[in-house]
């Protein structure tokens, strides 16, 4: 088992190294941060550009820059932002709560919407409500989330003035972005809940439960839904990547001060250390989750270990 864990951990570290190399190299192919600093000002001379390159250290050979980045990162230092002069670790830490709040909010909205709607659709198969829910979820999937965001802002914030259009002024600020994110996630989820529940409803144990004379509520709630939950939970876990992608766009629409907005502005201004830092942190998160899953599979199921 130790060998298995060591091999998986080694693999994870190799993936992380490949990702950092790819990002550090890739971001440097897309333009010069020294040039980006002059946006909105006057055309810089070649001399100005060279001076800033020297000050930022971007004139050094790529491998030197990458080596310094790795050496610092191993000591927990992700460098300093070119734009603000602040440590990247601090910038990311400062933004994480806002992004986590939005991710959680979106997930809660999605689950709250998807379970009742999916269950209702499955138990009223082919009824009008089922058709409406299915069409609705298709619509939800087809709307780009930034468009949905702007529409919700126009209706709920501008027209009705129920909620603030953007920013981070209190708990109520979380509602609109969470609903937007939630609608997009729920659209996929509702179809999955419905399909999964329909599948379990056809199983022999549900027939048996019904044959025992249990009330329909108990049959669905206690027997069918619980079993239908498994693929849904797996899916929710896998959705995390998609969730992050949606968050990046929504943070911009809703002026939400999270990691997504930090990433977008860092890419636009070619703030290499910030871009690298965010990718490293996110990659570490995803790799860690996968590693834990792999190891727990190995612990649970001895057959998995054989493959090493």
């Amino acid at each position: 088992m130790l060998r298995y864990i060591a091999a998986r951990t080694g693999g994870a570290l190799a993936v992380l190294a490949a990702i950092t190399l790819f990002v550090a190299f890739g971001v440097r192919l897309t333009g010069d941060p020294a040039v980006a600093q002059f946006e909105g000002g006057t055309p810089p001379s070649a001399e100005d550009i060279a001076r800033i390159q020297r000050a930022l250290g971007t004139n050094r050979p790529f491998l030197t820059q990458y080596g310094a980045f790795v050496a610092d990162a191993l000591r927990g230092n992700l460098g300093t932002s070119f734009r603000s002069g602040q440590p990247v670790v601090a910038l990311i830490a400062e933004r994480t709560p806002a992004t986590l709040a939005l991710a959680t909010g979106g997930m809660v909205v999605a689950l709250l919407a998807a379970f009742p709607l999916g269950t209702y659709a499955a138990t009223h198969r082919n009824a009008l409500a089922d058709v409406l829910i299915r069409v609705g979820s298709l619509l939800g999937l087809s709307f780009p989330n930034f468009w949905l965001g702007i529409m919700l802002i126009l209706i709920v914030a501008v027209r009705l003035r129920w909620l603030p259009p953007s920013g981070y002024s209190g708990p109520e600020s979380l509602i609109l972005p969470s609903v937007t994110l939630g609608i997009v996630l729920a659209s996929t989820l509702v179809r999955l809940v419905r399909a999964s529940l329909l599948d379990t409803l056809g199983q022999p144990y549900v027939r048996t439960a019904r044959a025992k004379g249990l009330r329909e509520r108990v049959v669905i709630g206690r027997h069918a839904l619980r079993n239908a939950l498994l693929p849904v939970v797996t899916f929710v876990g896998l959705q995390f990547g998609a969730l992050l992608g949606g968050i990046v766009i929504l943070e911009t629409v809703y002026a939400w001060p999270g990691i997504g907005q930090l990433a977008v502005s860092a890419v636009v201004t070619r703030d290499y250390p910030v871009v690298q830092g965010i990718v490293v942190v996110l990659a570490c998160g995803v790799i860690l989750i996968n590693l834990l899953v792999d190891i727990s599979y190995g612990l649970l199921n001895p057959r998995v270990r054989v493959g090493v």
Partner: protein
Amino acid sequence: MTSRAHGAVRVGLAVALCAVMTAMLGGGPAGAQSPAHSRGRSLVIVQAQDPQTWDPIATFLLSWGMVGSNLFDGLLDRGPDLVLRPGLATSWMWIRPDVLQFKLRKGVKFHNGEPVDADAVKFTFDRLLGPEGAKGPQQGNYKSIDHVQVVDPFTVNFVMKTEDPVIVTKLAGYGAMIVPPKYIQEHGSAYFGSNPVGTGPFKFVEYRKDDHLTLAVNRDYWNGAPHVSAVTYRFVPEAATRVAELQAGRADIAQGIPVSQAEVVKKDANLTLMPVGSPTVIEIRFDPSKPPAGDVRFRKAVIASIDVQTIISTILQGYGHRVSTFQSPLSFGNDASMKPYPYDPNQAKQLLAEAGIKPGTEVTLSFPSNNADFREAAQAMGSYLQAVGLKLVLQPFEQVTYFSDILPHAKTGPIYEFGWGGWTLDFDNTAYLLYHKGEYWNPVFSDSEVERYLTQERTTNDQGARRKAFFALDHRLYDLAIDFPLWQTVNLWGINKRVRGFVAPPDDRVRLLSIDVQ
């Protein structure tokens, strides 16, 4: 479970239906008390970008100027009328051809209580011209200064290294804002960048990156206290969201209203739309090393074939001014008597025939894709060029890639887009870096007559002689048709009607001192 689900669905549907119907019927508290009034005399401004640092030497962004001009003062100042006026210096004069002397205002203090004196001025420029300044984009503008000399506590001499006829103007720019020596020495530049201390009419209270910045009134301001009670700047990248904040009454001033949203602001009874011509000009340049752009007949044919005025009145909805040279009419060196080449497709066809360019010839137009207005204009240009027998191929690039890899290495098509704001409002900066041979932005073009005028304007402080050199340059460039100046951009501001005394500044430096709210 199911009945509970039933209930949830019913309630959900009912709420959604109500919301949609109220919205559609145009209900809602449109006529009710706007949240703007509950803010009293405090002001909320929404702007697109957070510059990430408030250190004057570390930025070039217009979004910095919107804020920084209220936190800091320079020796000189330039208001919305763009005329230079005294700031922390009460007077200035050249006491020798290479020494510019300033008399400082007495009794001014930084927000932390430090005195503003000759030592603070010296510290500011030592920092700007030293290693700290080398990290930022501002240093290059001030490299004609050799050093600053303290004469007495309220007199400083700027000793010049080289001629710089634009230095007085530059001293009203961002980089030359006077900063507190003790505070920066104690806390360091990174801290200063997120906790700025200046001498301006407003002082720093709180800053949350990419979210908001709060300022309080500086009651002891040397030029009188501001009328408003406090200011919050909020950073909202999406233009539609900025307009929404304005419509919802949660913001008083919004910067960067896109042309597509201009009507929305205009039609709102609580709002005013204010357009103002900016120093930024958009043009098409020709790369003479790439055929057929080396032929002046081709260049003039392209210019004659496109009806720029129609593009301005349709795509830009009139928010743009036709220009004849690559500088805004606000800039020193602009010959107002020059007229742009007229739209004349027949002449264009004739010129193309003379140059032996076959109908259906493909021409590539490279441009950065971030400017939505230009992207639409480029499509319109495609049909204009088709009408005279040229096939336009559009080649968009991401902005930073375009400016760092494509343009300076002459990897564009024979025609390409270029746009810049001449912040000094003097043609010198733009002209020198764009037409002087071998500059970063000018990898190919060279002309000896152009070089002569550029040297003439740069080596004298005599404004009359400089104007003459610029006018000659304007005409030479016009005859060469080396570029195709399109329009001066017009910035749109959305203002809540409760705001009084707001003047839309051409350079985005909103002066809050004169603003009041009802």
